[in-house]
Structure formats: structure tokens, C-alpha cells
């Protein structure tokens, strides 16, 4: 049986192939979907127009197709799955996506609550277990929880409101057109259109309403934008705020059951190595240690299978950690024993200088470069990185009588459920995955190797177990963000105009974790800032160079957009300098006139649009220009700054959201650098929760600064040399960007809402590097900057 994520990857590979072969037919399919949707909504829209003379877009819920239809188990729109109403009026909404800090556990249910006219103070949130056939897709990644679920949530909210109104009409023996739901009550309306004063609470109506047959979509009415009570306001704190500040919020390690044991695992230092022999005699002498369990290893491509090793089981975590220190293990050799960061980086640089596999070609790039007055070329390096989420990996597993219960912080609860079932030879219905809060995820908790380990150990010892990773385990045994060299070349003509553009990306692919290593960045990764570039130069060549993987590569917040934005946005500022131009003007000129990039005409053979139908979520350069101009204006771009201060700018579209960052740096007399101010402009379509968008942009600036200044996972002889925060540092409060101002482009609901978890990250590092150059003349092309700055 194929794992959930594996199936998704394979579907995406198939999708890319289909699109490459037949891009036009794909767009035709989208058009049919669109027409079908419009037909469905026609009646609602025209009814609404008859009532009020305002633009149609501001009135109706005008449904649109999204990539949700391409996800495993798609979406569910049955409100009886997501909503329960108690007789006392308490509305219980189910959050089916995982909460890792973006606020989705608040923002997604809030959409439903708003549409059903629930009073948020009477709403309770419960977390769904991993069950996609019941709830629809639960993969909390790709910045798509809100993008994919804003419409189903509205539909379910409208359905419940409809049923409550029908129930009240039955109760009063009147027609439903004479009643109206508002703020947790249904009101009797008088002939003058005002409430008569008679009302029934949602609790009183719950039993009858929730037993009703579900209305069809055509029967529903939807709120207009100006009727939203919570959406777009940013006045609703996250639901876990009080529990977090009082220590009551429950994360993965905060579950406990009777008879539970504690375990840590010694894992092979090099991916692909396994236990050759081991001696646990000293371990078993340590008070509290009860047993050791060998976990079978896995050979790449191992997907999310555990690395293997020896688990030490004890009566508390401390004893397990001490027991592991006393283990003597001989590890086998691995085919990745020769992986060395320095040598591999040199190899990537050499590859980047040679012609690569052409992924997109526009005009005649070879002639443009041959006829250029001069060619400007630079390379931009980015090392492997690790998520380093604050909560190290952990899972509680309880295997008993052929049933397995899991409590864990997982981004993909159903993926974990099916993968664990497969690993233990169980059926998914024998496994329950309960989802805790996630103490950060950033992509690491999409990969459930740690959950499988816990399940194996519980089954082996016949008792529940909490399997805890230490920080060192987390840093040394991750699924790492890929490393890359991005080479950018520009052909300049006699008038200092850029007439040719070449971007060659050399980067091991995520797909090497799932299949025999293809050796080139995939179409999916190329869709993250490589082939989908907004650059509009007449002659362009977008290429990939070969790079094999020697570790487990996985998603990291914003994925391949990080190296692509790093290369492209740094290079544009370099061009501006060499050609004597303003960096912002250079950026806008290279993007070119406002347009929705036509992927067929632009020869984007391997376009991956984050799984979204292109015509609904096009690459719209006017929106990219919009955020650039907004951030620049707010930051005072072009104004004279005091000595030692300077601005840098960068912009990037990722996950169909547009973000521009302007970073201000200040140099001190000792050469050190600080970041007094950042202006981030974001266009995420209709904005559900501006307050959480701001918090994500503030956090993205800190993570962007961390990866610019510090992050680099290094390998020697196949093993990661970093181990904890002293040699894999992250930014601290004493050095963070002091003030991040977030500016959100305002849109009505008709401009499709998109996600904000990831898109803030990619522009930050190049904006910072550009600011450092402007302030000091020091051009940084290798991440992290480390000792090279300040």
C-alpha cells in the first residue's frame, strides 16, 4: 500500500507529465469546471442582485475550483461532520487541520462560525483525529489550509444557518422567509423588515435543525463581505491563547497513560547505515532502564521509514537518555559515507557553470548571450537547513490487542495513520491518530518516522510508550531542506539593456526521498521560483544541473522558493549596481509590464502552480508589482537616510501569495549590523485574519534572518556535524528585526484567499543581503553570512 504523501507525490509527478504533454487540454478542463460552478451559483447571484444594486462580486459567494480537488480525499462539505450544537447553545466546531503556529485552528473554524452567524464566545473547538475519509484532506502543509477550506467552511456555515432558520420557521409555523439568523439566534422578522423581538436561541433549535436534511448548494444564501462579523477584522485571539499562557496547552509530549514507558533511540550517524552489532549490558544496569528494542533500518529511498537503531526503554526520560549514552553500537558502512559539504558544494558550483537540462526557453537565449556587449554572472549558494522547531519530535503509542492508539504532533495525521498501519502490518481502521498541538512544524512533522518508531516499540514491549527525540536527534536525523547553487547570468546590450537571462539551478531533489534519485530538481520544485519566474526578459533559458542526494531531503517552510528567491533577487540588485540603476526600478523593469503570465505561451512546460488551477490562481505580475510598490512606499524608498543606514528590497510569489520585503540595516562604528525596521507587503487575496497574517510575517522575518545569518547543516563523512543550538544557532530577541511592519493588500472575498504560512520567508534573506550591500558595499552570495558580516 502506498503512503499518503507518496501517493500525492506520484500524483503530482503524473500531473506534471500530463501538463507537459498536454497543457492546453488541462486548461480546458478547468474551464469546464468553472462553467459548472457558475451555473450552480447563477440563481443565488441573480437573486441577490435583485435585492440590492451593488456589484455582483461583492454580493454572492461565487465558487471557484481549487487544488483541493487534486488532494487525497479532497474536501468534505457535510456540516454534521464539523458542527455540533448543544442544547445550552454551545457550538462545537471541529478543527481538522493541525495547529503549528499559523493560527489555522482558529482561522479556519472561524470562517464557518461567521457564515453560520455563531457568536464566537459560544464556540468551542475540538481537534479531529486523523480521518480523511470523514473530514477530507488533512495535510497541513503547502500554505493551503485556508486556500482549500475557505469555501467548504462557508458552505457548511450557510447550511447550518439555513437549517436553523428552517427549524425556527417550523417552530413558529411560518415561512422561512419571515425569519433571519443573527448572532446565535433566529429572529422573527416583521413585515417592515425589522425583527419583531421574538427569537429562538441556537441551543433551543439545535435538535430539530441538526436532524434536518442538508440543503443543496442552490438553496443557500451567503453573507456579503460587509456582513462578516469576524472575517477580515483580526480581532479574534487564537483559541489556545489562555492555555498557552498558563501552561495548560497540550503538545505531543504532554500526553500520558497508565503504565506508560519512556524511550529514546540511538540512530545511525549516516543515512543508510544500520546496526552491525551492539552491547547493552551497561545500559541495562542503569536504574530505571527496563529494556532495549532494535528498530530495523531502511535503505534510501526510504520515504518516511525510521532510520533504524536501538531504542532504550525506561521508567522516565532521563533514565532512557542515560541508558542510551551507555550503549555500545557498531554501525555498518553506508553508500553515503563520503558525503562532505565542502566537496559537494564545489561539485555543485562546477555543475552550475556548465549547460544544464533546459526546463524553459524563451526567444533565442544563446544568440542573446553571443551578441551581448557584456555578460554578468554570479552564483548564490544555500546549504542544507534543518527545521529546528522548538518542540523536538515525540510520539506516544499504545499498542494493545491489535489496536494502536497514537497521540502525536503531526502535520499529516491521516498520512501518519496509514504509514504507521503499513509499517506494523495493520489496517488503517486499527489505528487512531490523535493530534496534539504542534510546537512548531515547518514541514518536519509531515514526515512520521518518529511516530512509526513509537508504534514499533510499543508493540514490542507490550506497553504504551512515549518516544522522545532530543535536540541532537532532531538536528542530526532530520529530513533536510535541500542545498543549492543558483547561477544567474544576464546578457547586456550596447544600451545597458538586459536582453538575455539565464537561471541554472543545481539542487538535489526531494523526490530522492521517495524514488530512485532522479538527480535533477523536479517539476514540482521548479514551480517554486524557477520556471514560474516573473522575469519578462525577451530571451531566457531556465535550466537544471545534475545533483545527487546523499541525505534525506524534505520540505522546509517555503521549500525551493528559498534558494530561488535568494539567487534571483540578489542578482537583480547586483545588476542594478553594475548598470547604475535603482534596485527597485531594476526589479520592476525586469518583471516587465503588468500581465498574467500565459504558461503555454511562455513555454512553461513543467509548470506546477502549487496544485492550483492556473486560471483561478494565475501568476499576475501586477500583484507582484503592487506589493513591491507598497513595501517601498511604506519604507520610504528613495529618501535620503542617515549615514550607515540603507534599504534592500526583494519580492517573490510563492504558494500563490505575493510578498515584498524592504529591510533596513544600520551599521555601527564597530562594523556590526542591526535591523531596525522591516516593511513587508503581502497580497494573499481576501484576508481572513489580518492579525495572524501580521504574526506570520513577523515570524517569517525572524526565520529569514536566521537562515541568512546562521543556518547551515554540514556533513563530514556522511554524518551531520551540527548538534544543538550552539552550532546550529537561531536568532534571539537581542538581534531580531526590531520592528516588522506588515502591510496587507485589501481585497474582497471575490479575490481568492491564499495562505500565509510560508510566503513571508523567501524574500527576506535577499532583501537583507541587498541592504547590507547598500550600506557597506559588501556583497554576500553564500548563505549563511556568518563571520562575513558584522
Amino acid at each position, binding site marked *: 500500500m502506498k503512503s499518503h504523501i507518496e501517493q500525492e507525490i506520484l500524483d503530482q509527478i503524473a500531473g506534471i507529465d500530463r501538463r507537459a504533454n498536454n497543457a492546453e487540454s488541462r486548461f480546458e478542463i478547468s474551464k469546464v469546471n468553472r462553467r459548472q460552478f457558475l451555473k450552480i451559483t447563477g440563481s443565488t447571484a441573480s437573486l441577490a442582485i435583485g435585492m440590492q444594486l451593488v456589484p455582483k462580486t461583492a454580493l454572492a459567494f461565487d465558487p471557484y475550483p481549487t487544488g483541493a480537488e487534486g488532494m487525497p480525499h479532497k474536501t468534505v462539505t457535510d456540516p454534521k461532520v464539523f458542527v455540533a450544537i448543544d442544547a445550552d447553545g454551545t457550538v462545537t466546531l471541529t478543527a481538522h487541520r493541525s495547529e503549528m503556529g499559523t493560527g489555522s485552528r482558529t482561522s479556519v473554524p472561524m470562517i464557518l462560525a461567521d457564515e453560520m452567524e455563531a457568536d464566537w464566545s459560544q464556540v468551542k473547538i475540538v481537534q479531529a483525529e486523523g480521518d480523511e475519509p470523514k473530514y477530507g484532506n488533512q495535510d497541513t502543509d503547502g500554505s493551503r489550509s485556508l486556500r482549500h477550506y475557505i469555501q467548504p467552511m462557508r458552505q457548511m456555515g450557510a447550511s447550518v444557518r439555513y437549517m436553523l432558520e428552517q427549524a425556527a420557521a417550523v417552530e413558529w409555523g411560518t415561512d422561512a422567509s419571515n425569519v433571519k439568523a443573527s448572532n446565535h439566534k433566529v429572529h422573527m422578522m416583521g413585515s417592515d423588515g425589522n425583527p419583531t423581538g421574538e427569537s429562538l436561541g441556537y441551543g433551543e433549535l439545535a435538535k430539530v435543525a441538526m436532524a434536518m436534511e442538508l440543503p443543496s448548494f442552490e438553496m443557500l444564501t451567503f453573507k456579503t463581505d460587509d456582513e462578516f462579523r469576524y472575517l477580515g477584522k483580526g480581532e479574534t485571539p487564537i483559541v*489556545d491563547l489562555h492555555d498557552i*499562557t498558563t501552561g495548560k496547552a497540550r503538545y505531543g509530549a504532554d500526553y500520558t497513560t497508565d503504565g506508560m514507558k519512556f524511550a529514546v533511540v540511538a540512530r545511525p550517524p549516516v543515512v543508510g547505515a544500520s546496526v552491525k552489532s551492539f552491547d547493552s549490558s551497561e545500559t541495562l544496569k542503569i536504574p530505571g532502564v527496563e529494556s532495549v528494542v532494535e528498530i530495523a533500518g531502511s535503505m534510501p529511498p526510504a520515504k518516511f521509514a525510521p532510520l533504524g537503531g536501538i531504542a532504550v526503554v525506561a521508567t522516565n526520560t532521563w533514565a532512557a537518555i542515560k541508558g542510551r549514552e551507555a550503549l555500545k553500537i557498531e554501525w555498518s558502512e553506508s553508500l553515503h559515507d563520503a558525503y562532505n559539504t565542502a566537496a559537494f558544494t564545489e561539485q555543485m558550483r562546477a555543475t552550475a557553470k556548465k549547460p544544464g537540462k533546459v526546463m524553459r526557453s524563451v526567444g533565442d537565449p544563446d544568440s542573446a548571450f553571443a551578441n551581448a556587449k557584456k555578460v554578468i554572472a554570479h552564483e548564490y549558494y544555500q546549504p542544507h537547513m534543518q527545521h529546528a522547531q*522548538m518542540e523536538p519530535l515525540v510520539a506516544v503509542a499504545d499498542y494493545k490487542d491489535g489496536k494502536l492508539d497514537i497521540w502525536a504532533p503531526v502535520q499529516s495525521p491521516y498520512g501518519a495513520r496509514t504509514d504507521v498501519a503499513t509499517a506494523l502490518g495493520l489496517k488503517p481502521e486499527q489505528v487512531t491518530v490523535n493530534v496534539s498541538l504542534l*510546537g512548531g512544524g515547518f514541514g518536519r512533522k509531515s514526515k512520521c518516522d518518529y511516530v512509526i518508531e513509537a508504534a514499533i516499540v510499543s508493540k514490542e514491549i507490550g506497553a504504551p510508550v512515549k518516544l522522545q527525540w532530543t535536540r541532537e536527534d532532531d538536528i542530526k536525523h532530520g529530513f533536510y531542506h535541500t542545498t543549492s547553487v543558483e547561477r544567474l547570468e544576464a546578457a547586456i546590450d550596447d544600451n545597458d539593456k538586459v536582453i538575455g537571462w539565464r537561471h541554472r539551478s543545481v539542487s538535489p531533489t526531494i523526490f530522492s526521498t521517495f524514488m530512485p534519485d532522479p538527480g535533477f530538481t523536479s517539476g514540482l520544485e521548479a514551480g517554486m521560483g524557477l520556471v514560474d519566474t516573473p522575469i519578462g526578459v525577451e530571451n531566457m533559458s531556465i535550466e537544471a544541473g545534475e545533483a545527487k542526494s546523499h541525505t534525506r531531503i524534505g520540505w522546509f517552510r517555503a521549500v525551493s522558493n528559498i534558494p530561488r528567491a535568494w539567487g534571483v533577487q540578489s542578482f537583480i540588485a547586483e545588476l542594478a549596481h553594475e548598470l547604475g540603476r535603482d534596485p527597485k526600478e531594476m526589479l520592476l523593469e525586469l518583471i516587465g509590464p503588468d500581465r498574467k503570465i500565459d504558461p503555454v505561451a511562455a513555454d512553461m512546460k513543467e509548470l506546477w502552480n502549487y496544485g492550483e488551477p492556473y486560471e483561478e490562481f494565475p501568476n499576475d505580475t501586477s500583484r507582484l508589482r503592487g506589493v513591491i510598490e507598497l513595501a517601498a512606499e511604506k519604507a520610504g524608498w528613495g529618501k535620503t537616510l542617515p549615514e550607515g543606514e540603507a534599504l534592500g528590497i526583494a519580492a517573490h510569489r510563492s504558494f500563490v501569495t505575493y510578498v515584498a520585503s524592504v529591510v533596513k540595516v544600520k551599521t555601527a562604528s564597530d562594523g556590526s549590523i542591526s535591523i531596525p525596521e522591516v516593511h513587508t507587503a503581502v497580497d494573499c487575496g481576501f484576508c481572513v485574519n489580518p492579525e495572524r497574517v501580521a504574526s506570520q510575517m513577523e515570524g517569517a522575518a*525572524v*526565520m529569514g534572518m536566521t537562515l541568512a545569518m546562521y543556518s547551515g547543516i554540514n556533513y563530514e563523512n556522511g554524518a551531520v556535524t551540527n548538534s544543538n543550538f550552539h552550532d546550529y544557532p537561531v536568532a534571539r530577541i*537581542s538581534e531580531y528585526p526590531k520592528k516588522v511592519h506588515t502591510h496587507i493588500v485589501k481585497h474582497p472575498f471575490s479575490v481568492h484567499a491564499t495562505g500565509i504560512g510560508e510566503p513571508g520567508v523567501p524574500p527576506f534573506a535577499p532583501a537583507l543581503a541587498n541592504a547590507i550591500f547598500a550600506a557597506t558595499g559588501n556583497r554576500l552570495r553564500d548563505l549563511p553570512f556568518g563571520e562575513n558580516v558584522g
Partner: protein
Amino acid sequence: MAISFKVNGEEQIFDGDPTMPVLWYVRDVLNLHGTKFGCGTGQCGACTVHVDGNATRGCLLSVDAVAGKEITTIEGLDSEGNHPVQKAWRAMNVPQCGYCQSGQIMSAAAFLSSTPKPTDDQIDQSMAGNICRCGCYQRIHEAVAMAATDTTEG
């Protein structure tokens, strides 16, 4: 030999491994889960507790070092969860994932009790031992400043 001390006002006696860090003692033995494991090496501050009122990293502090002392965890900071720092944290909507926030709040509370009117630099220096990977620093700084005002006035 049994070690005795107080946790959140309650007398405790422990006769297990005296080298067990207070972090694992409160989590695994007392089932007080508000104190978090982050790095195990005193670098991130997620495990911050008060020992006789001073902010201390629970992951490096063995149980035998707290004999006769008074430990306060996030659960014992304020019976209603309304310590000025907790209130400020909520007013500023500080948390994202929230995992590090127990430690942040415990550090801030101890800092403000010794430095009721801190400067901006003092806030940043005193809170620099607590990592937040989500990057809530801007709001942490503002919340500490806000709590300082509350403490001063109250």
C-alpha cells in the same frame, strides 16, 4: 537518600536518581507538563522554572541541587493565570505555536520582579536566553514592556 523541596507550594520528597534534572522530574514524575523540553543543554530556555524566585533552566538543574528550595513552574505562577506577564502576553497576542511561551513567561516574570522598570536593552538582554523559533520576539518585547507598566502601576 530522599531529597525534599517544594513545587508550587507543595512539599515533595524524591528518592530516585538525584542527578535527574528538575525538567524531567516535574514532567515525568509530577506530570506537570507546562515546563517544556527544548534543547537539554540550557541554550533555549523552554524549561525555565523559578528556584526561590530566580529564573533557572530546569534541564541542567539536578534534583539534588534544589534540596530545601522552592520551585515554581508555569502552573504555579498565578492561581488564576493572571500574572501581569500572562495578561500582557494575551493582550499582545504573543504566541504562534506557543511551545516556548511557558519558558518565556517564567523568564519575564522573574526578570520584572528584579527589574520593575526595564529599558528596551535590558528587556532584550534578559530575554536573550529564550529562543522562539516562530519568531514572536517583537511581541514578546512589547508584552514585557507592557507587563512592566502593569507591575509598576499595580
